[in-house]
Structure formats: structure tokens, C-alpha cells
């Protein structure tokens, strides 16, 4: 994971985004056990409070499961698939908008995508 942070948003939001990307790309696998909040914070070089807040958000989204004394785990395949599709939708949304700004319609985007490597 890349732990460089942009200046314009709270760090905990960016940590959560980093985890979502890792789950979507498979860098983190369903069922993987996460290290402790403090270890993760030291790894990312951030405040343990920011790390805890990020993990709390991911837990409320269902991407991470808290199994009490056993620790925290990456949730099952379903949650990983959901986040993969949600991120794909976001990427496509962005692409359509940026191409729109350049004057390309959907049909042209599809043709260009088909021609792309």
C-alpha cells in the first residue's frame, strides 16, 4: 500500500480508501487477519486514532470484521466483490466525465475502449 497522503482531506478517510483499494485489487484477501491498530498505525506512519477511525468506518461498511479477542479480519468474498464493483463504477464515472469534457460521447468512448490495448 502507498501511504502518501493528499493535503485536502482528513488522513483517516485516505487510510480507509487505501484499504478499500487493497481489498478490491486482492492485495488483501478475504479472511486475512489484520495487525493491531498500533502496528498498522506505525506501518502507515499515522496517529493510532486516525487508524482506528479508518478501521471503524471499514467495519461499519462490512469490509472488515471484528472477531473480538481474535482480532480484525478482512470480510468474506461478497464484500470484496461489492467494493470491486463500486470502485469500477467510480472509475467509469470519472472516465465518462473527463472524456465528456474533451467532447467525446459514450459511443465514441466505447469504440476507443475497444480499440485500446
Amino acid at each position: 500500500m502507498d501511504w502518501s497522503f493528499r493535503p485536502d482531506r482528513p488522513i483517516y478517510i485516505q487510510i480507509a480508501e487505501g484499504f478499500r483499494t487493497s481489498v478490491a485489487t486482492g492485495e488483501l484477501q478475504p479472511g486475512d487477519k489484520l495487525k493491531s491498530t498500533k502496528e498498522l498505525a506505525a506501518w502507515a506512519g499515522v496517529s493510532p486514532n486516525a487508524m482506528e477511525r479508518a478501521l471503524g468506518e471499514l467495519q461499519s461498511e462490512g469490509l472488515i470484521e471484528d472477531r473480538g479477542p481474535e482480532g480484525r479480519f478482512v470480510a468474506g468474498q461478497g464484500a470484496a466483490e461489492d467494493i470491486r464493483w463500486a470502485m469500477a463504477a467510480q472509475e467509469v464515472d470519472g472516465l465518462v466525465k473527463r472524456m465528456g469534457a474533451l467532447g467525446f460521447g459514450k459511443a465514441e468512448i466505447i469504440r476507443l475502449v475497444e480499440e485500446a490495448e
Partner: protein
Amino acid sequence: MAILECKDLKKRYGPTEALRGVSFNLEPGRITGLLGPNGSGKTTFIKLTAGLLVQTSGMLKVCGMEPGRKTKALVSYLPERLDLPLWMKVEAVLDYFRSFYKDFDRDRAADMLEGLGVPLDKPIRALSKGTREKVRLICCMCRKAKLYLLDEPVGGVDPATRDFILRTIIANFDPEAAVLISTHLIGDVEKVLDDVIFLDKGLVKLQSSVDAIRQERGCDVDTLFREVFRC
């Protein structure tokens, strides 16, 4: 209960007013940056809190007590300048800390130093500047204190040493203790801070959480600092 409380705290050195009425609290489980340009009063504030100076007027309490013998047992202070005798061997420094502070975990400190490859049987004099700083920081962070006062912990060290210092501060995090880090190198330290206090010419110019600054102003603390203290 707040770990540190101060109200209208003033410190004067002869005609010079170093602190001109400072008020804020530090809560447990938070890492706070005390930020300001040179001469803004950061070190004076930290020395008052460490019990090395006495205020001219105003209130200052650590865990409900005025700084003194009892609070020194609860406060772990990292001075801006290295305070270890150069002739002393590293292992003797560890013994020295254990005899001074009941809350010092000598085994943990020795493990950390060995993990870094620091020779325990060499005198401080034989170590590089960065290694001396690491030894001193480990001594500071291996106490189980209620308040950690770190005066410019990343000043003048290389990036690898800086990362080690920041990671050691994070790894030592205790939800029942407060950490106060003074620095003017904000960009290096911002990621580990929960809250910031801007000191300007002996007064608190701003107190905020880092999240609130990023959320509400859309910029990082470093950028805000440069705006507030533009020359």
C-alpha cells in the same frame, strides 16, 4: 480528567515576555503538536510543564498537580538538546534511567537498542548524532508516563532517523497518556498528530484537530501554518 491544564499562563524573563497568557488542556489518548516559529514560546512552555522553570503568573497543572517532584514521576521529557553525559556507556544510561524512574522499562529499551544494532558497551561519545538521538528517545518513550513532552524530536536528523522516531512514538501510544510534540518542521510530523496548537509570540493563535483543518479549510497543517505565520 485532563492530563494537562493551563490557564492564562505567563512567563517573563526580565523585560522579555516569553508566554503572554496561554490557556489550553491536553486530554489523554491524543498526540498534539505544539507548533510555532522560533521564539514563539514552545520550549518555555515545555520547560514549565517539565518543572524546570516556574511561571510568572497563571495556572499550570499536570494530572491535577502543580509541576514538582510528584509530576516529574508522571512526565517523560525529551529535551531539545542532548542531555546524556558523553562519557557514559549506553548500558549505564539505561541503569541511570531505571534508578531515576520507577516506570522505566529497561528490558524493552535494551531490546529496542539491540534491534537497532546500538552497542550497549560503547560510550555515548562513540555514537553518531542520529544514534545518540535514538538512544535518548528510546529512554524517553520506554517510560510508562502520563505525559510525554518531546521538544523538537526530529530537528536535525536524517529522514530514516526521523521515521524511526515517529514510528517509535506511535508504537508507544497509550490511550491513557497524552503526547505533546513541539516542532517547526510540521510537514514531517503532521501525519502522527491528532491536534495542533499554534503558538505565536507567547499566545495561542489557533487550537484545532488536524482532521478539522483538512476538512474545513481543505489544506494540510503545513500550508495553514505558512499562511498564518507568513513573514
